[in-house]
């Protein structure tokens, strides 16, 4: 167990193992995303109130769920980097920030597209939407801080501190936005998801959420490999890797 943990600190080992994971995970993810989309879009019954427009749920909800989970992945990587000074944790932190930001953005955009036919408006200052927007800002803050540092090792540590501060703050921000929303209760808009979801719609949704987690993992590993190659480009193992591939 511990030897596995220590090996994670070694760039060549991580590069090799991530390569062999990606070899089967990446095709599997693409197939799962395709299958899940087909299942959700073609083989589920239409909603009795929203008709077919609800089908965007199969992109919207998985993106939102994984975007939130991504912040915790980032914060845990940050904690590992600060506690055990593990360089690979910095790489993981840096790699997960843009993926999380992209997923948050997808969740916001699909939410707006879904909102137009359902609520009749692109944007509502609803508690959940506002919280997602703030999450996007938190992700962008991490990326901006990382890019501002020239010394990438310090950048990783600074982002780790910021990610941890953000983690403490996320529950507070969420609760206070909920509170704010209950003060400014708008009149007629209501989330339609209150009725329990039918199994025929739930299973493809769960399938898509799993597929999105796999997608997050694939993107994380690909990003980490790219970051590793650029950080370690002057080391011997990269030179050997290039020599082997020729």
């Amino acid at each position, binding site marked *: 167990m511990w030897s596995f943990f220590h090996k994670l600190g070694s760039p060549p080992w991580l590069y090799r193992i991530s390569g062999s994971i990606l070899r089967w995970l990446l095709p599997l993810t693409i197939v799962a995303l395709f299958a899940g989309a087909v299942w959700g879009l073609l083989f589920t019954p239409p909603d009795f109130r929203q008709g077919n427009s609800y089908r965007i749920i199969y992109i919207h909800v998985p993106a939102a769920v994984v975007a939130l989970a991504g912040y915790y992945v980032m914060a845990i990587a940050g904690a590992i980097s*600060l506690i055990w000074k593990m360089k690979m944790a910095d790489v993981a932190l840096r790699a997960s920030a843009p993926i999380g930001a992209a997923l948050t953005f997808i969740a916001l955009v699909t939410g707006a597209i879904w909102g137009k036919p359902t609520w009749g408006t692109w944007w509502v200052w609803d508690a959940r939407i506002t919280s997602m927007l*703030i999450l996007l*800002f*938190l992700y*962008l*803050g991490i990326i*901006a*801080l990382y890019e*501002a*540092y020239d*010394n990438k090792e*310090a950048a990783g*540590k*600074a982002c780790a*501190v*910021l990610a*941890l*501060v*953000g983690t*403490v*703050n996320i529950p*507070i*921000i969420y*609760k*206070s*936005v909920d*509170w*704010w929303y209950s*003060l400014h209760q708008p009149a007629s808009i209501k989330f339609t998801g209150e009725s329990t979801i039918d199994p025929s719609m739930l299973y493809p949704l769960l399938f898509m959420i799993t597929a999105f987690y796999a997608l997050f993992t694939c993107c994380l590993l690909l990003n980490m490999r790219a970051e590793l190659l650029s950080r370690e480009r002057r080391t011997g193992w990269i030179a050997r890797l290039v020599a082997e591939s020729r």
Partner: protein
Amino acid sequence: MNATTFFMLIVRRQLLLAVRRPIEIANPLLFFLMVIVLFPLGLGPAPAQLATFAPGIFWIVVLLANLLTADTLFRSDFDDGSLEQLLLSRQPLYLSALAAITAHWLLTGVLLALVSPVFALMLNLAPSAIPTLMGALLLGSAVLSLLGGVGAALTVGLKRGGMLISLLILPLYLPVLIFGHGAVVASVGGLPVAPYLAILGAMLCLAIALAPLAMALGLRISVDA
């Protein structure tokens, strides 16, 4: 030297530095005044309308004033090397960070709270809400100073920290905005304000316990980089 003496010494030093350059103290106040003037010009001078927006205007301007001054918190200490002396000192960095924040709070948050009744009258806020406004400003601005300090510590080593710090810190300021604003609105409406002030106080407790730790880590990273 015991911890309390050390703490008081740092606070005294920061205050002295500020008093020697009075314009640094006046800047946030002038900024506060000028931004407040923008709102009647932008939203229209109707007294009833201004009174509705006044709590929000106050908090947004306090947020911005805090943000602008947070950037300079550790800057001069970083440039002249006294920050490194604090890092090397036998006293914990937690304490020096907390002392620097206390001085910052006294010079921005407390000053803004003290002058806020004048601006409240200019914006036609109900006079009965003024004590709540001052209390909420005192508590809330301390939280803002602590959070701003974290952003300042993380960006002090960077040449262009000014814009970046707002991106990092503004999302973290939002709970203070929501509850500070809520307190003043509740007070205008004659509702109990104690829950809002209690939540602001709870945020302050959490921020005092954790923010100086993050600041200490951030200062070490910035000096090492």
